[in-house]
């Protein structure tokens, strides 16, 4: 028995490893490898599907023409692209100051306060709260009182999703700034606000920008909250943010589930466009933060 074992075993492993232990070890290695391969295959299949179907639906008209009516040929998604740009811009413009200031409060003023602990905890929860609930909130807050779906409501819903992301990264990045820098600033006679704006924020700027880019990537593909707030608008984009505004995610949702091949093609093209944008943003965010870490 022992002899057989020794023969089967690689010499470096020694001869005292019982077969049971060896099998358990092999099984772990194999199953971990299988898990990773399965993950990679699924990812590959999703990306492949996006690229193949998306390129099939791609045409220059995408960027120049509005969404076509049901069952008709041609058309593009220009109004949805523009609408998405406007909505995410509103979202990030509203969210960035609030998020950065709140993160500053948590990292600079609220290190020891109970209130800051509570806010930090609730912010973490808001970070993973179901986005559809945020849609219901903004619907009650804005859409119902104002009487119609509106671009403003969509922007606010996206801002609410972006804020916790920015708060979290801003706080984490400010905490990485060494306390000696703040002390040096204070020793020169600068009041706390001056120390924060011209010392700590500057030292952490790359990290804060990363947080904002990540938040942008997060809200760019959000669909559920827009269903109840900005909804859609099949005509050419109007500057009227008081009415419904076409946007890529809702357009993709409605067109992909429609029975018209033309609409489905446009949905795939939109899906490729939006995923490509989000992946690019995520990669940029990683590149921005890199030089700071190595410093």
């Amino acid at each position, binding site marked *: 028995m022992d002899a057989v074992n020794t023969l089967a075993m690689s010499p470096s492993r020694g001869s005292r490893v019982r077969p049971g232990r060896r099998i358990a070890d092999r099984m772990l290695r194999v199953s971990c490898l299988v898990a990773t391969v399965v993950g990679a295959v699924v990812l590959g299949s999703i990306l492949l599907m996006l690229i193949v179907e998306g390129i099939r639906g791609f045409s220059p008209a995408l960027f120049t023409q509005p969404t076509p009516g049901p069952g008709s040929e041609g058309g593009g998604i220009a109004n949805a692209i523009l609408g998405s740009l406007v909505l995410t811009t509103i979202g990030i413009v509203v969210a960035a100051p609030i998020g950065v200031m709140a993160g500053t409060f948590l990292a600079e003023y609220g290190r020891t306060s109970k209130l800051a602990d509570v806010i930090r905890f609730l912010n973490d929860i808001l970070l993973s709260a179901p986005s559809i609930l945020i849609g219901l909130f903004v619907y009650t807050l804005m859409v119902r009182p104002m009487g119609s779906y509106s671009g403003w409501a969509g922007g606010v819903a996206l801002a609410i999703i972006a*804020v916790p992301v920015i708060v979290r990264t801003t706080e984490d990045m400010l905490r990485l700034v060494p306390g000696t820098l703040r002390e040096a600033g204070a020793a020169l006679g600068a009041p706390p*606000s001056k120390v924060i704006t011209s010392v700590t924020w500057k030292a952490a700027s790359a990290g804060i920008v990363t947080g904002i880019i990540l938040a942008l990537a997060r809200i760019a593909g959000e669909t559920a909250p827009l269903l109840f707030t900005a909804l859609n608008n099949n005509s050419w984009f109007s500057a009227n943010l008081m009415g419904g505004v076409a946007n890529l995610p809702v357009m993709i949702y409605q067109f992909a589930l429609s029975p018209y091949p033309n609409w489905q093609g446009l949905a795939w093209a939109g899906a490729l466009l939006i995923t490509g944008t989000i992946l690019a943003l995520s990669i940029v965010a990683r590149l921005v933060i890199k030089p700071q870490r190595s410093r």
Partner: protein
Amino acid sequence: MPAVTQSIALAEPRRAARKGPSRGLDTVFRLCSYGAALIVLLVLAGILGSIVYGGWPAFREFGFGFLTSSAWNIGTEQYGALVAVLGTVASAFLALLIGVPVSLGIAIFLTQLCPGWARKPVAMTIELLAAVPSIIYGMWGLFIFAPLFARFVQIPLSNVVEGMPILGTVLYARVPSGVGVFTAGVILAIMIVPFIASIARDMLDQIPTVLRESAYGIGCTTWEVVRHVLVPQAAVSIIGAIMLGLGRALGETMAVTFVVGNANRLSASIFDPSSTIASRIANEFNEADGLQLNALMALGCILFVITFIVLIIARLLTRRVRAA
């Protein structure tokens, strides 16, 4: 010497005068940051307040029966949450059942087994997977996964289990279309894998290398190191990560809406179409009014309660470790 004293004396009032506005600015800045932090608090309170306010008429109308009734009839205005709640819990449970082993496998592979050169690209790919919008997963599930699943799994399996005692109900697909609770579970599993895997990987990476080396040094196999050293060390935070994934699975809307089938039917089979809370809200909200709208808001309340309990537990578990 007197000149110096004089100049200090002269400078004194000027400094005092400059201090005034700057201190005012300082206070404004502090209050701004304070106010911004309070907004986070207000938003959370607002979310809870708005859905309780919106759902209250439904709770008053149906009372506790709202939770136990499986009715959802727009014509007779009878609404109950049972099907949607069960669908939500069942799909999230299936997602954990499939997703947790895979994500732990990936985390262990990345930290223990993977050759160094491949570690970074694989880890980055998985993190990017977490950034893909959920609607894309829904499209993949509906157009790629569901047809394949119906053809190669549901139809053969239904033929095998037909007539069997328990399996014949649980695994039998009346209409093998590929959509249903199980497919929703699979898609949710794919969505939470990158999430759980990247947190678990961070946790495993934080364990001091000395612990691992000493275990290998006394002759442990990789399995034994994982089982007796790494898992006990990281268990609490990994459970926290799993709970975070669960919170995400419970509230996920778009991907599930694509593949769950959106039927209000109480069925024992995991292959039958059903609904989750989020998918029902997404589907019906825009056309709803009156009591139906209230019932959907009430569903939102239930979702709020379930996910927030899960998320609070998750954050407490992950925080305890960070503090230790």
